């Protein structure tokens, strides 16, 4: 275990505080630059495991367009993005699809589902 310094830009709000953190692994020893308390939770999570919403597209058959936009229905570990993308490359949906339909449930053991972010009717 070593004490490290890291730099973060908080994205909780549009201000985007530039924060310097001294930490031992994911334990915050001190931090400066934040203008409110919300940054601490953000930085703690960033040190522990950066979480993000993934938005992408998957292929779809029988619709007006060849791909349909999707997202995770909650934040997932950022480091798993390449794995999620590989898995989503392999699937193909069949129209019609409704907005928020679950396309893949519990993807890669993240507890998050992949949901469609628009409706796509079947093309006549």
């Amino acid at each position, binding site marked *: 275990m070593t004490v490290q310094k890291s730099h973060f*830009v908080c*994205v909780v709000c*549009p201000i985007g505080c530039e924060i310097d953190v001294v930490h031992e692994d994911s334990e915050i020893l001190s931090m400066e630059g934040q203008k409110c308390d919300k940054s601490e939770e953000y930085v703690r999570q960033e040190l522990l495991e950066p979480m993000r919403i*993934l938005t*992408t*597209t998957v292929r779809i058959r029988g619709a007006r367009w060849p*791909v349909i*936009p999707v997202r995770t229905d909650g934040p997932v570990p950022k480091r798993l993005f390449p794995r999620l993308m590989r898995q989503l490359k392999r699937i193909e949906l069949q129209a019609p699809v409704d907005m928020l339909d679950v396309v893949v449930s519990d993807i890669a053991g993240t507890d998050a589902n992949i949901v469609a972010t628009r409706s796509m009717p079947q093309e006549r």
Partner: protein
Amino acid sequence: MEVDVAVIGSGPAGLTAAIHARGSGARSVVLLEREEELGGILKQCIHNGFGLEQFKQDYTGPEYAERLIQDLEETDVQCFLNTLVTDLSPDRVITALSPEHGAIEISAGSIVLGMGCRERARGSIGIPGTRPAGIFTAGVAQRFVNIDGYLPGRRIVILGSGDIGLMMARRLTLEGARVIGVYEIMGYPSGLKRNIVQCLDDFDIPLHLSHTATGITGKERVEGVTISKVDSDLRAVKGTEQLITCDTLLLSVGLIPENELSQQAGVEISAATKGPVSTETMATSVPGVYTCGNVATVFDIVDHVAQTGATAGASAARYVGGRLNGDVPHVDIVPGENVRLLFPHRYSFQGDLLLFIRAAEPVEKPVTVEVSPPGSRITRPYARPNEMLRVRIPGAKLAEVRHPLKVSIREK
């Protein structure tokens, strides 16, 4: 056909305007859209971050659009899809073409312009070099990837740090392309800070400030882009050129309101904002013609676009109902210290004034936005050219004003 209100364009501004025009008493409202679906550019903006202010939700673009479309479907607003407006006259007659209806003429009591904006392309910034395939605006690449399902290239250089370019840096990286870097001529990024963090930093994509493209090579296809540093006058510095091998150049170098139709209607265009000269009711210089969203001025976030759509829709309904005069006294709103852009351009004494202000230079300290007369001072934590400030001046404070309102941003 004759209608109370005709709205041109069904992006977030036009959809919101149509809903609000109907909701504010217009008896017949039509919405004209040249594409085959409603929603405008939101359909290809598949990332999240939309509607945080308006709906307190973190929607993706398509979700935001679908929510507005659902609201629209609860009204009796008549939508014309695949309908291209080819002419707009000062007395509010619209000529449009569609495969379904042929040529149609619509005489409207009032009109809302919601055509949005266009991307600046290579011609606007004049990059020397050959003219190969592989040079796209960021929005065109976004359409290719997110709607048509094509990857436009494998090794990508992005010129300009506008938000769409930042989004595409992340999107193309996720899809397996290599984004070599984002090069910005200014000394500060033009996109929002959170987008720099979440689209570039998250994927270790470098952002090079004070750099620009000074050459393009390749015969059939882009083979490389020459990048140079620029000095404080934004001129390329000799000897700093580096050739970057790539097959694609994306341009994210600004947006310009799309006012071809506005000009046909005789609307006065502002040299400062490149959109119609507008009042706080979103009235243009032509009575009965209103403007909203990015055709009015280019906004940063969809919530502001929709907010102006709501105002324009309500104003259009009031005009057609005889409750809002097309020719009312007004005072100008003029930029003072550290203000690059102001919207609207005029105040016409119709209630509160919602001002959108873009700073000329970044101030990373608390600032005072001063509007004088009437001498209002509003504090903000910072002022950045890439994030419009929005302030509201109560109508009651402005009732006695007889001189131009001067807006300044000063360090507190």
